[in-house]
């Protein structure tokens, strides 16, 4: 009981601390740094939500950018100024073209549709395993891209939507990062989360224990997609431009990298990896620009990745969360169990 209270207090304290940091940042930093932080925040959202399926449940999905595209396009179409919309997107039904929504409902609708899309796609696709699932979800990106590219009258095709109102700011991103972390944290430490991890460790054993495999998989996939859709909406209203190629395979890879680097199933790890990767890339930016050696950033990031995976194959945190964040201070026993299951998990993967 006291443990729970402590957890809530800690969460509230961290949220307030974060809010103070955001306030200090918006007051003192220039737009460049604010933009960097905003993108890092969106990446945190994406990495953490992807860890639901890829980290906790052990699915290998590359489909996050596809759901971002769904959420991004829908949110952008909803917030787009009505006076230009009908002209730019002539095939939109009139009632839709007349809408001009504020950001929040647009994000929510975008996220909801992305979640629905994930359920629809998930029914067939989630029957696949391992790399077969990876290829199928990769396919979702290509399929969606082809559709968006060819539905000119609704999406403006290859040119993309430009002039999307710039509604996303650091506060929006921060709020959604907090919500994403909160929801995913609660899921991880709920019976649903334990079900997911049980499936990851041993599917057959989980099934024998009465875990509804298909439904749990679909839940992980769809909840992740809802956040991806919302993140896509935030992204679109930050960049102000969204094209069929804006969100692609490379982003899918980057997100998987974040999840793995953070430690499969560690939400804090995924978040820190997302922040760390963008920090490295952007710290190198001025060096690259003054030396004229373009491509250096990617080379250094690649080397860091290889190094980390060689020296810390379980990622930054394994499947655990940093000790300070755990609810009960005395709960060293469960975390040791988590560590040991992780080891067996590794051995099992390595030798099959």
């Amino acid at each position: 009981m006291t443990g729970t209270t402590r957890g809530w207090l800690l969460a509230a304290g961290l949220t307030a601390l974060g809010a103070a940091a955001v306030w200090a940042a918006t007051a003192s930093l220039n737009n460049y740094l604010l933009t960097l932080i905003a993108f890092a925040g969106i990446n945190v959202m994406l990495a953490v939500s992807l860890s639901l399926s890829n980290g906790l449940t052990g699915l290998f999905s590359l489909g996050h950018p596809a759901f971002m595209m769904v959420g991004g396009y829908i949110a952008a179409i909803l917030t787009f100024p009505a006076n230009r919309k009908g002209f730019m997107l002539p095939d939109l039904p009139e009632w839709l073209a007349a809408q001009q929504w504020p950001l929040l409902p647009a994000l929510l609708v975008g996220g909801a549709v992305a979640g629905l899309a994930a359920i629809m796609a998930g029914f067939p696709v989630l029957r696949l395993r391992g790399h077969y699932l990876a290829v199928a979800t990769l396919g979702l990106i290509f399929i969606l891209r082809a559709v968006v590219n060819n539905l000119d009258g609704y999406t403006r095709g290859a040119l993309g939507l430009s002039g999307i109102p710039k509604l996303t700011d650091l506060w929006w991103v921060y709020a959604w990062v907090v919500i994403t972390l909160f929801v995913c944290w609660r899921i991880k430490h709920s019976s649903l989360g334990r079900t997911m991890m049980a499936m990851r460790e041993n599917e057959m054993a989980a099934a024998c224990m009465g875990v509804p495999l298909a439904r749990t998989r679909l839940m992980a996939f769809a909840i992740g997609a809802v956040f991806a859709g919302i993140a896509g909406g935030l992204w679109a209203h930050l960049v102000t431009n969204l094209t069929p190629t804006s969100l692609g395979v490379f982003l899918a890879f980057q997100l998987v990298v974040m999840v793995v680097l953070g430690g499969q199933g560690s939400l804090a790890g995924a978040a820190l990896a997302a922040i760390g990767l963008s920090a490295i890339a952007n710290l190198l930016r001025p060096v690259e620009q003054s030396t004229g050696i373009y491509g250096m950033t990617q080379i250094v990031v690649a080397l860091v990745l290889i190094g980390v995976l060689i020296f810390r194959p379980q990622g930054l945190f394994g499947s655990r969360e940093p000790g300070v964040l755990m609810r009960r201070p005395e709960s060293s026993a469960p975390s040791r169990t988590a560590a040991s299951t992780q080891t067996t998990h590794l051995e099992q993967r390595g030798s099959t």
Partner: protein
Amino acid sequence: MTSYLLQQIVNGLILGSMYALVAIGFSMIYGIVRLINFAHGDIAMIGAFTALAVMIVAGLPLPVVILAVLVVGAAMGLAIEFVAFRPLRGAPQVNGFITSLAVSILIQNVAILLLTAEPRGVAFPAFLSERIPGLPINIDLVDILIVVLAVALMLGLVTIVNRTRLGMAMRATAENLDVARLMGINVSRTIMAAFAIGSALAGIAGLMWSARYGQIDPIMGFLPGLKAFVAAVIGGVGSIPGAMLGGYLLGLAEVLFVGLLPPEYAGYRDAFVFGTLILVLLVLPNGLMGRAAEDRA
């Protein structure tokens, strides 16, 4: 109309030959070390640039070029295995996948730094692009060479895998790495052999690519690499005959979708290719010739 269809099929087979060569290496490495090697396509790029250097810059004849590409491809495969994958042995599979992505990014960006991103034309001897006379459809000499060489290499590989001690070691290692080691098989050497052979084949695919299309650039390996991954998955990752079949099917699907669909749907080609792929996998969840996932994943 029949010659139109025949032409499309032949074109699909030629494209498929190159996908198959890359996919085989992919599948072979996967079969033995359970590693999806995304840098595999980039080895094809290195093969293509090796061909350019040996043929155009050094002016050496075609057989020497082929030999050089084989050697450089194999050497690159070994180097990558030694630096990036050997230290990872025993780690979760997905780590290898990420490392291979990192290696791919590394190779591409170093190549851009050294060679610039600009595509360049490669002039192969003109007789290669001579049209074969007397046929109702259009086939160049180089097309025939590609298919013949691809099939020959595949047959050679199958022979190695099925008939030699090395092949037996490979199959044993693929079956169960630990047991193979207990049986006295030098697992490290077997893995190195898989990398060397697979990468040499990818290098040759790069050579063919440049001979057929006449243009190469530092990021040319990415898309074929991705497609070879898809081809290997269609065939059933880890199965060598499956990779061949997957490569040919993907080549045929790409050409036939464009060739047979009304042009206004041509923009949906990738959607059709991937849509079909997903359907195939739903019917055969382990690919065409793969084994049950429980064994593999």
